[in-house]
């Protein structure tokens, strides 16, 4: 298959206009020693063969069945109208809106996105989105270091392990001390923050599902002159107090839960929302409101002097693109759901989680998180977590994100529910785990 319009006659005509005899001549600047005769790649395919091949690949995956997977990505209800509207050609195939006169669609939608994120987080200034939750946390730490001129970053162990890994990757080139706060009873302890700390980073709900004492932790950070960075699931903000309410200076996180498909982990988008005082330190694109020469309201990329294409080596970050399309998808989804719909998603998720936890406890299993939690919690497993996940997969159930060993919790998994979780799903999972646990006990007693 190919997407080229050129007929042989076109090619001849163009070569004549250019004044060369052959296509090869156009590549004469490439030294002969570099000319690659042929790439070792498959031959092209027609659309039918191509889609057949892709469907065969897709068949080697299983996505059907009850799904209790979380740990930073969850399957949520996305109404049909969301992908329909966000996947319009004009949004999908546009470039970054540098020519504002013909990019009001994306610019205004982004201004609406910024407003929505500001509303959800209760903080005033949202950028136009970032890559993902993890890299947003890393950018937040860099921002805090710039703003405070301090070099110590304190991160709670309750922050997603992959996020902490990304943070460490980003900070490796700086003379920074990255300090992890170990959890106590699955919650971040309220320890003293030292005066050389740029920021304290806490996730709520944390990776193990616990609700953190955000107000107290924010106060502890501020008492030491440090910034407080809240890593949040935006869906949870339908019910839980928002970063602006407990004094966070920066709210960051991943937006997958408010309108992006799972996509095997990406693309989703990261968000960053900050206080007024941090505006000039904010990385990434920003859309602002202004007027055109006819005094009509219009939107434009603004404060670009912070960015790499102007400041080059003095930019706040090297970040160039945002995750416009996936952020737009979330904006449309939030508008589709409205305040009531978003609340219903969150409420359904919470209720299912508590129902599941109670059902598991009722058959003698140990839930480590809680009793207060949002829609994820840690369950003690009778066998190694990956093995549990494999056995459940064998029964058509996707469940059991392994809790990394360095939490010191032994064999444990994270279970997660959403508004899509049905009572039947819960029954299936509970009886499957019960059965697996009983088999394991028999095995142990006979072994």
């Amino acid at each position, binding site marked *: 298959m190919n997407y080229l319009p050129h007929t042989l006659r076109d090619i001849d005509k163009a070569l004549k206009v250019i004044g060369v005899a052959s296509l090869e001549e156009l590549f004469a600047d490439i030294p002969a020693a570099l000319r690659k005769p042929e790439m070792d790649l498959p031959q092209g395919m027609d659309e039918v063969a191509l889609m057949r091949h892709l469907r065969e690949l897709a068949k080697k995956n299983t996505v059907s069945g009850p799904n209790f997977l979380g740990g930073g990505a969850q399957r949520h209800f996305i109404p049909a109208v969301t992908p329909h509207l966000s996947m319009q050609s004009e949004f999908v195939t546009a470039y970054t809106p540098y020519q504002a006169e013909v990019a009001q669609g994306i610019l205004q939608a982004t201004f609406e996105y910024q407003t929505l994120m500001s509303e959800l987080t209760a903080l005033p200034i949202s950028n136009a989105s970032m890559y993902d939750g993890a890299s947003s946390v890393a950018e937040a730490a860099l921002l805090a270091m710039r703003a405070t001129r301090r070099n110590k970053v304190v991160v709670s162990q309750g922050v997603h392990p992959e996020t902490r890994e990304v943070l460490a990757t980003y900070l490796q080139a700086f003379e920074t001390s990255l300090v992890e706060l170990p959890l106590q009873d699955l919650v971040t302890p309220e320890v003293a923050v030292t005066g050389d700390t740029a920021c304290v980073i806490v996730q709520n709900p944390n990776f193990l599902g616990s609700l953190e004492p955000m107000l107290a932790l924010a106060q502890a950070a501020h008492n030491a002159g440090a910034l407080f960075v809240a890593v949040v699931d935006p869906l949870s903000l339908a019910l839980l107090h928002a970063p602006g309410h407990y004094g966070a200076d920066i709210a960051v996180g991943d937006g997958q839960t408010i309108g992006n498909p799972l996509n095997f982990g990406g693309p989703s988008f990261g968000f960053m929302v900050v206080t007024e005082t941090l505006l*000039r330190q904010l990385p990434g694109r920003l859309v602002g409101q202004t007027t055109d020469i006819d005094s009509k309201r219009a939107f434009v990329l603004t*404060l*670009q*002097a*912070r960015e790499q294409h*102007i*400041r080059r080596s*003095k930019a706040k970050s090297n970040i160039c693109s945002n995750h416009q399309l996936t952020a737009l998808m979330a904006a449309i989804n939030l508008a589709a759901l409205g305040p009531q719909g978003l609340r219903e998603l969150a409420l359904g998720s919470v209720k299912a989680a508590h129902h599941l936890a109670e059902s598991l406890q009722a058959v003698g299993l140990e839930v480590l998180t809680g009793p207060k939690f949002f829609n994820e919690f840690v369950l003690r497993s009778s066998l190694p977590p990956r093995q549990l996940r494999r056995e459940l997969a064998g029964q058509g159930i996707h469940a059991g994100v392994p809790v990394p060993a360095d939490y010191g919790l032994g064999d444990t998994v994270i279970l997660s529910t959403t508004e899509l979780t049905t009572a039947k799903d819960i029954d299936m999972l509970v009886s499957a785990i019960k059965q697996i646990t009983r088999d394991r006990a028999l095995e142990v007693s006979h072994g």
Partner: protein
Amino acid sequence: MQTPSELKYSRSHEWSQVSADGKLITVGISDFAQDQLGDVVFVELPEPGRKVNAGEAVAVIESVKTASDIYAPVSGEIIEVNEALLDAPEGINDSPYEAGWLFKIRSENPAELAELLDAAAYIKIAEEG
């Protein structure tokens, strides 16, 4: 384009006004520089009390499409900054030599003043681009 003859200038387009005792230096950017930058939208000023070296970048002036560093013409301590510019950066465009002043330095090394340009020499440099 105005280039007042009573002021001193740097190659990087800052003007310096030297007090009678030679110790207090008021700094801004030239009319030529503000014209080149276009409408100024934001100014980042140094903290008063900061010690700076001659040639050190101490402030940033942003227009819509560019950001320019402003360099200290002499070494010394920043003793005052023009906070009015934070809310009204257009002062730099409207009145580069008066309302648009940026900061004041207490000079520590009088010899550095001798290295600044006079108006005629600066005009020559500015015209050559």
